[in-house]
C-alpha cells in the first residue's frame, strides 16, 4: 500500500498552507493535472513543485470531485470509461465502463448522477456514480463538450462544438427543451454565482457568449483581442467566475493569454501572458491563485490573482488538459 507514503506528505501540505485549507480535513492542496497525451496525472504541491506523476488510463481529460471530495472522476477518452480515484491515496478505486469517449462532465447536486459529454457519439449520457449504471442519454449535436448543471439540479447545459449549439436538458422532464444557437465552436461554461447568466466560450469566434438562464436567449458577447494577436489566434476555451461574481478568467488558447473580465460590466480589464495554447483553468479555494494548463507547452502557469502576474510555470506531462485542486 502506498497510502503510508502519502499521509505524512499531506499533513505537511496542510501545515504549510493553513490559509489555503478550508475545513480541517486531509486536504493536500495538491493540484492534479491530467495529461491528455502523456496518459498520466501530474501532482503539483502548493509550493508549486511536482510531487509525483501517476500513470493512468488512455487520454485522460475532464476531472471532477465527487460530492464530498474524497474521490474524483477522471474521463478516459481512449478507454471509453470514467476512472474513479481516491483523492488522498491517488489510487484507482473504481471504474464506470462503457462511456464512449468521455470528454468533460459535471456532477449533479444529488452527488449520484454524473452527466457526461460523449464526444464521438453526439450524446450526453447520465451515469449513476455509485453503481456505474447508465441512466439516460440525450441526443446532442456532434462533438459535445462542456457540461454544466444548475445548482437546483434541474437543468443541464451541454455545448456542441461542431453544431454551434448549446443544448438545454430538463432532467425532470427528461427532455432537451432548447437548442440555443451560439457562435462558432462552443466549448465550456461558467455560471455566475446567482445563476442568472451562463457564459459560453466560442472557441473559433474568439468570444464568450452570454445566455440568460431565465429566457434561454443570448444577451451579450465579450470579444477578446490581446495586443499583437490576430482575431483568428484568439481561441477561448475554459473559463471560471469568482465566488463573488465580480471577476471571470478566460483561457484564450492560441493567443497564449488569460483574459481577466469584470463580470458586472463585461469589460476585459487585463490579459495575462501564460504558456502556449492555454485551455484548462482552476482557482484555488481562496482565489489567490489561478492555475492554467498550457496544452502546447506542456506546462502549468500559476498566476497571482492580486497582481495579475504569473508566478511561475511548472513543466508537467504531455498536453495537460484540466486541473483539479484539492483544497476545498
Amino acid at each position: 500500500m502506498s497510502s503510508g507514503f502519502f499521509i505524512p506528505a499531506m499533513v505537511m501540505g496542510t501545515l504549510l498552507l493553513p490559509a489555503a485549507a478550508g475545513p480541517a480535513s486531509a486536504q493536500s492542496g495538491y493540484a492534479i493535472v491530467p495529461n491528455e497525451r502523456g496518459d498520466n496525472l501530474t501532482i503539483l504541491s502548493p509550493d508549486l513543485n511536482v510531487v509525483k506523476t501517476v500513470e493512468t488510463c488512455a487520454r485522460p481529460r475532464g476531472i471532477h470531485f465527487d460530492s464530498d471530495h474524497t474521490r474524483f472522476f477522471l474521463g478516459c477518452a481512449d478507454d471509453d470509461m470514467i476512472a474513479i480515484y481516491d483523492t488522498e491515496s491517488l489510487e484507482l478505486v473504481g471504474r464506470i465502463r462503457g462511456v464512449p469517449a468521455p470528454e468533460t462532465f459535471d456532477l449533479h447536486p444529488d452527488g449520484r448522477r454524473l452527466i457526461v459529454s460523449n464526444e464521438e457519439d453526439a450524446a450526453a449520457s447520465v451515469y449513476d456514480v455509485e453503481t456505474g449504471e447508465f441512466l439516460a442519454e440525450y441526443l446532442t449535436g456532434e462533438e459535445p463538450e462542456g457540461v454544466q448543471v444548475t445548482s437546483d439540479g434541474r437543468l443541464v447545459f451541454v455545448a456542441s462544438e461542431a453544431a454551434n449549439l448549446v443544448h438545454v436538458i430538463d432532467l425532470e422532464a427528461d427532455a432537451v427543451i432548447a437548442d440555443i444557437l451560439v457562435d462558432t465552436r462552443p466549448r465550456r461554461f461558467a455560471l455566475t454565482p446567482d445563476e442568472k447568466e451562463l457564459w459560453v466560450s466560442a472557441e473559433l469566434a474568439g468570444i464568450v457568449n452570454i445566455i440568460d438562464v431565465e429566457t434561454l436567449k443570448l444577451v451579450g458577447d465579450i470579444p477578446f483581442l490581446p495586443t499583437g494577436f490576430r482575431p483568428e489566434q484568439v481561441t477561448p476555451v475554459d473559463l471560471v467566475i469568482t465566488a463573488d461574481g465580480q471577476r471571470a478568467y478566460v483561457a484564450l488558447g492560441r493567443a497564449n493569454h488569460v483574459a481577466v473580465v469584470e463580470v458586472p460590466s463585461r469589460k476585459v480589464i487585463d490579459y495575462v501572458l501564460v504558456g502556449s495554447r492555454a485551455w484548462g483553468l482552476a482557482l484555488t479555494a481562496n482565489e489567490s491563485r489561478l492555475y492554467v494548463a498550457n496544452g502546447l507547452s506542456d506546462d502549468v502557469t500559476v498566476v497571482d490573482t492580486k497582481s495579475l502576474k504569473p508566478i511561475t510555470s511548472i513543466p508537467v506531462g504531455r498536453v495537460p488538459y484540466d486541473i483539479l485542486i484539492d483544497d476545498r
Partner: protein
Amino acid sequence: MVYLGVEGDPHYEPQPLYTGLSLRDRERPLEGIRLGFRDTRVLGRALGLTFELDEVIASPETLSEALTDAQTSQPLAILIDLPPESMVQVLSATGTDDLFINIRDRSGRWRGKDCAPGLLHTPPSHAMLSDALAQYMRALGWTDVLLIHGTTDADAEQTAAARQSTTKFGLKIVDERAFELTNDPRLRDKSNIALLTGGVRYDVVWLIDDLGDFGRYLPFATYSPRPVIGSEGLVPRAWHWTFERYGAPQLNQRFRRQADRDMTSEDWAAWVAVKIVTEAVVQAQSADRAAVHRALRGADLSVDLYKGVRGNLRDWDGQLRQPILLATPNAVIAVAPVRGFEHQFDTLDTLGADRADSACRR
C-alpha cells in the same frame, strides 16, 4: 441538396499499374457528404428544418435530364463531382438562381476564365496548393529549386502553378526537367534518376507527377541528398488522416467509424460543402434559397473547417478560403499560411489567386 456525378467517370475507374498495383484509386466522396448530413441532424432540430440529400449518378447521355430534374426540385445547392467535359455541359445550362458547388476539380480554369456566376469551389486550387509549398520552402530557406515534371496535361497545369508560386515567393528554379517513363537508353537523361537530378546545385526537388508511377522512385534516390516535395515526400493537401489539431482527430474518427477508411482530401472537400451550406442556413435563419445564397457569399460566413481558422468564400471566384496541410504519408509537418506571411486583409489570401490576380470576371 443534390450530389451529381456521372457513371463511368474515368476519374473513378480503377487505375491498375504493372503487377496489379494501384497507386491512385479514388472513391466518390459520398461518405464525406453523408457525414456532413449526419452532422446536421441536431442542427435541424434547433432550426426546425430537415436537410435532405439526393445522390444522383447519371449516365453521360442522361446527364442533362438529371440536371433538369435536380434544378426543378429547387435544391439549396448541387454538389458537382464531374469530369471537365461534363462541367462545361452542366455550367452552360445554369439558371440564374442555381448554385453549384464544385467538390472535385482543382483546376484554375473554373476559378479563372471559365468561372460561372453560380459556382463555388471547396477543394483548394492547384495555385493554392503550390503556394502553400512555396511559402514553406521560403520559410525554411530552400530557395534553389529543381523542378521535375511529367508530360501529361494534368502535369502541365500543376507545373505552371509551381512556376508561378516560385515567382510569387521569390524562389529560384535552377533547372526544369521533364521525365519519361521509359527504359530506352537513348532517353536515359529523362528516365535515369541520377542523371535527372545531377549536374546542378539545388536545395530541394519539386516533383510534379500526377500519375505517380515515376515519382515514387525519386525520394532517397536523387543525385544530391535533398528532399523531394510536391507529388511525393511533402505533399500539400486539403486534409490529412493524421492531423492532430483543431478538433481534426474527432472529425477523422467520426469519418472512420462511418466509412471504415481514412478521410481523404476529397472527402473533406465534400463534407465541407455540406457544412458551408448548412452554416449559411443558420446565418440566414431560413431555408429560403435566395437568403441562403446571399449568406453563403457574405463576408460574415464563418465555417469551422477543423483547420484552426474560420472559412468563408472569396467573392471574386467563389473559392473557399482555407489553410493547406503539408504532409508526409503519416504526419502533418506544417500548415500554410506559414507563419510570417501576411496579407492586407486575410492571411488565407496569400494562397492562390488574390482579387487582383483573378481572371474571373463575373
